[in-house]
């Protein structure tokens, strides 16, 4: 199909992706395009659709559709680096259940996408292996930690990519790149094959260019898996159509926000009212404590989960050492980057005897209060609306956002993880040439409602195209 030249910031129609990664006529052109775009933007740590064909069904609703997989999710014969020197050469002997289900539906792994090391960060700059640029402005970060996935989708290399969301790692990069980000209900998608960072918080989800794509991929991926004992059976909620009651936490106003985000937030609220929905400001008393509670719990779990990297059975091992203990110490020192070391140290500290009540136990009790705030909200509302991140995509090199500010900025995203709730970010506006995202949160297993609400917004404001989109192969 002949397509007119794209205008950045305007949305093009749906592209035909089926068959592209297998036998489709556009295959060669797509591959050339994908490789060239990836060379410019650094989305992938391994881009190899030929290798990806191994294991995919020839038929199915997604036959021949290429997709990206965040490089903390296992795909057999692909590397599984987690963006870390620790696992730079690790090749996965097996495939994650979520990926396997997509492969059975015909989808083809195009490659493994870049991320902040072990999923720890909001910029993808904590990757030890590659730099990823935002397709809207290469001087800016794509967000993180699933930054490679979001950039690959926004650049038009793949229609969707898998990410993991521990405190916002799918929704924030999706918002930074002007695409959709679905963080499903905790436990609704199997995590077999996801490298563990903070097990009580994280979930595998989807970054996509359209709501329908997210919906299709989610339907394939979800459901209990005997290989993940924390996975839950899918429990669909009764469909709610028509006028929605949407709560907005009053405390959002207390967060210092960039004027472009404020503007997009206002636009979204008025758009939702125009669509016939009711918006109400409601107080979330725990709001100011979510970031503390989140970082205590996430780092505590990280310190335990990352104890497995000892240089013995797999992963980086130091060149020479006199005894096993020295080998482990040196291997971990050489293998982990600063942000990972920081989180392991913090997590170890908050779990130390004598400090547990003050930090870890207290954070878990606050987590209960956060859950209760949401339970109260959903007794009177269908959805909760919040911004995704207080600032637009920031400059690379931490010039305008240091690591501490980046942690505080998780305030809008991490509560969904603490409460286990599904949430979906959607492109809400383009301000000064950069996309701004908003998000809906919903009760457990109400993904259908999230998707239909995002679809309504999409009809008014579809995912805006980054410069260079649609893809040159179309």
């Amino acid at each position: 199909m002949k397509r007119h030249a794209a205008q950045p910031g305007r949305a093009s129609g749906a592209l035909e992706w089926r068959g592209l990664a297998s036998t489709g006529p556009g295959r060669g052109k797509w591959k050339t395009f994908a490789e060239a775009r990836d060379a410019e933007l650094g989305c992938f740590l391994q881009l190899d659709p030929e290798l990806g064909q191994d294991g995919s069904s020839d038929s199915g609703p997604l036959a021949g559709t290429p997709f990206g997989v965040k490089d903390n999710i296992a795909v057999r014969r692909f590397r599984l680096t987690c963006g870390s020197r620790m696992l730079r050469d690790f090749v996965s002997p097996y495939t994650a259940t979520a990926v396997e289900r997509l492969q059975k539906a015909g989808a083809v792994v195009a490659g493994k996408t870049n991320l902040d090391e072990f999923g720890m960060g909001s910029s993808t700059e904590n990757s030890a292996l590659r730099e990823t640029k935002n397709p809207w402005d290469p001087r800016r970060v794509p967000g993180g930690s699933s930054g490679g996935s979001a950039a690959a989708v926004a650049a038009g290399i793949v229609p969707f990519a898998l990410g993991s969301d521990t405190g916002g790692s799918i929704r924030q990069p999706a918002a930074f790149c002007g695409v959709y980000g679905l963080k499903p209900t905790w436990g609704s998608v199997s995590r077999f094959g996801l490298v563990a960072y903070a097990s009580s918080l994280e979930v595998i989800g989807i970054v996509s260019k359209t709501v329908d794509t997210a919906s299709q991929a989610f339907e394939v991926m979800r459901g209990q898996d005997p290989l993940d004992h924390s996975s839950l059976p899918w429990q669909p909620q009764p469909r709610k159509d028509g006028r929605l009651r949407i709560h907005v936490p009053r405390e959002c106003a207390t967060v210092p926000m960039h004027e472009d985000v404020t503007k997009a937030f206002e636009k979204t609220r008025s758009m939702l009212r125009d669509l016939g929905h009711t918006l109400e400001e409601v107080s979330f008393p725990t709001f100011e404590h979510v970031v503390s509670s989140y970082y205590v719990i996430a780092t505590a779990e990280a310190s335990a989960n990352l104890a497995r990297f000892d240089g013995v059975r797999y992963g980086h091992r130091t060149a020479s050492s006199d005894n096993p203990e020295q080998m482990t110490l040196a291997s971990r020192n050489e293998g982990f980057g600063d942000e990972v070391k920081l989180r392991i140290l913090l997590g170890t500290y908050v779990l130390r005897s004598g400090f547990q009540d003050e930090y870890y136990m207290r954070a878990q009790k606050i987590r209960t209060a956060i859950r209760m705030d949401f339970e109260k909200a959903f007794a009177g509302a269908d959805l909760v609306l919040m911004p995704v991140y207080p600032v637009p995509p920031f400059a690379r090199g931490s010039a305008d956002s240091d690591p501490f500010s980046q942690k505080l900025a998780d305030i809008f995203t991490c509560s969904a993880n603490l409460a286990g709730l599904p949430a979906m970010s959607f492109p809400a506006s383009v301000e000064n040439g950069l996309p701004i995202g908003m998000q809906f949160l919903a009760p457990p297993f109400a993904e259908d409602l999230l998707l239909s609400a995002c679809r309504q917004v999409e009809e008014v404001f579809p995912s805006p195209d980054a410069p260079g989109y649609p893809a040159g192969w179309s």
Partner: protein
Amino acid sequence: MELDATARMARLTLTPRDLEKLGKAVEQMLRYFSHMKEIDVDGLAPTTHALLRENRVRADHNEASQADALLANAPQREERFIVVPNVL
């Protein structure tokens, strides 16, 4: 915050540069965590998992061995043994 002692427990040895850089970052986060004291948590039970209601176990049977694929990632190996420095 006894960074050295914590680092030993975490199996990390910190260089003077790490102590300086990470020490500051850890202090900053702990100062921030101290605001949690302001919230009243009396009577609240801790949440370990938001939605996990039961513990499941899988069937106790043999599965196909992936030993060779797993061993392929070992950093140092002699045939089917993983080599480590002398323990004694």
